[in-house]
């Protein structure tokens, strides 16, 4: 029995190495000087006959690549700001649109609720390939292509947060709501004073998952933003990688930071959210 659990520990450690290894490389790479990084991974981007290598710990750790990227690449800030501008308003919009919708599905029974909810599930399942033409047509009609709104609006009306939050709202004990009703609280009051506080972890879960999704978005900006000046970080990163290796490493790390910070802060909520995305009712 002992040997068995030892074996499973060893196996897990090896597999975890596949995850931490690349991340470690990214972080250490960002502290390497230009010469070291070129020596390490230059062969990948040049046509040399040498092979790439890696120092587990940089020989001459330096902050120079960070300084260079932050001082000499105004582009980087523009793209970072583009990402923020395109992601956060969408999430705030979800708060006003998806939260009440989820509340409605979770707490009320009304005619047509079931087919409507199935419609939301189907919309959630559909990949971008299916909806991109229709999104394009409607964004074109409203002359929103090539603006931040082309990314924000479809995100606001995403079905995914409705689906996640519905689970959490459903878990609120009915007796609590009945009690509030007996005390004479109106529907809006119940929503604001019981629904939102009691379902807060569901709302946070949906927001965190939504953030990760939007921050990593590639397909939408690629399709709806022709103007490169509007491109978010996720599209811009691969552009720099081939020219300045050091800067590319740093840019990769910085682009990852918001997502990792939110992950570390919200891991509990991410797990709850994923568990709630179990389609089982």
């Amino acid at each position: 029995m002992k040997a068995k659990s030892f074996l499973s520990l060893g196996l897990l450690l090896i597999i975890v190495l596949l995850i931490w290894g690349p991340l470690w490389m990214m972080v250490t790479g960002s502290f390497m000087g230009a010469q070291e990084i070129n020596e390490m991974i230059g062969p990948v981007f040049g046509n040399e006959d040498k092979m790439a290598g890696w120092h587990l710990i940089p020989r001459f750790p330096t902050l120079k690549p960070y300084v260079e990227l932050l001082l000499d690449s105004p582009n980087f800030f523009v793209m970072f700001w583009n990402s923020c501008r395109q992601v956060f308003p969408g999430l705030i919009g979800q708060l006003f649109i998806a939260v009440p919708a989820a509340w409605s599905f979770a707490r009320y029974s009304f005619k047509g609720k079931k087919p409507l909810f199935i419609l939301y599930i189907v919309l959630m399942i559909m990949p971008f390939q299916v909806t991109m033409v229709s999104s394009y047509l409607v964004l074109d009609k409203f002359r929103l292509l090539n603006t931040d709104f082309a990314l924000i609006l479809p995100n606001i009306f995403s079905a995914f947060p409705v689906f996640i939050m519905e689970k959490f709202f459903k878990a609120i004990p009915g007796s609590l709501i009945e009690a509030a009703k007996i005390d004479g609280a109106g529907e809006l009051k119940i929503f604001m004073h019981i629904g939102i506080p009691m379902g807060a972890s569901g709302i946070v879960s949906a927001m965190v998952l939504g953030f990760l999704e939007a921050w990593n978005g590639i397909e939408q900006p690629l399709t709806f933003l022709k103007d490169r000046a509007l491109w978010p970080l996720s599209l811009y990163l691969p552009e720099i990688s081939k020219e300045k290796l050091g800067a590319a490493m740093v840019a990769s790390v910085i682009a990852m930071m918001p997502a990792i910070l939110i992950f570390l802060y919200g891991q509990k909520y991410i797990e709850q959210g994923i568990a709630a995305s179990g389609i089982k009712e």
Partner: protein
Amino acid sequence: MQELIKKFTYEGKGAMTRKKTTMQKRESRAAWLFLAPSLAGITLFILIPFGDVVRRSFYEAMGGKFAGVANYITVFNNGAFQLAAKNTSRFILTCIPLLLAISLFLSVLVMGQRKLGDFFKSSFLIPMAVPVASIVLLWDIIFDKNGLLNRMILMSGHQPVDWMNTSKAFYVLVFSYLWKNTGYDMVLWLAGLSGIAPALYEAASIDGAGAWKKFRYITLPGLLPTAFTLFVLSLINSFKVFREAYLIAGSYPDNSIYMLQHLFNNWFVTLDIQKMCAAAIIVAVILLLFILIVRRYSGVREEDL
């Protein structure tokens, strides 16, 4: 207390089917008001344009003449579509079973780790947060012709492989997908595993069942509803692997990883709206049918979806 709550909710439900009181009317009005903004947005931004897509798929691009299924036939006969559909199906059929099996296996291992369980769970989840754009540079370094993986292969005395620009690119994509999604699936498996009553295992132990028997006759059947959910979610996520493919190899990658999204993007550049409309509907229909078929044969009960 539990009983009381139950009675309460049952009475509530009973009243619902009886006469409509003013209270119920008020509630139903509130429900629609809460739902209205979302429903209006979805109608305007998704349903109506999608209706338009359905209509367009049956019409000619020029002159607006009814074309019947001509657009569909064009799409089905299109070589690029056949390639993309084949690759996407191959990818889905390879990755989803692999992902489900690996993440389940790892979940069972993680369950057995008391102290380090949380550490492992976090570790597997982290790739979810890592932007694809950040990881692409690393994949270049690792999988390039002169990259680290080939260096290791050389050192072990084998011939290096051009991972990115040959049909091997498919496996790089499979690896990326597994790398990114194992944690997500693991959380769901763990939730499913913790839902199985420990008493079942104890009883089985008393009856002398070994680890495999317990897994086969208690764990697997107990996880069936979770498995269906996981299948659907993994399917959704498998369409997102285009991100890696695009960032690694651009708009025209190796033939083995030319996915539906590449095709749509390339049609998009030439604004082949009619073809795209027909193809979007084909994908939607096939996807829904696939889910319904799996649902039927996985023995999931009616209330599970």
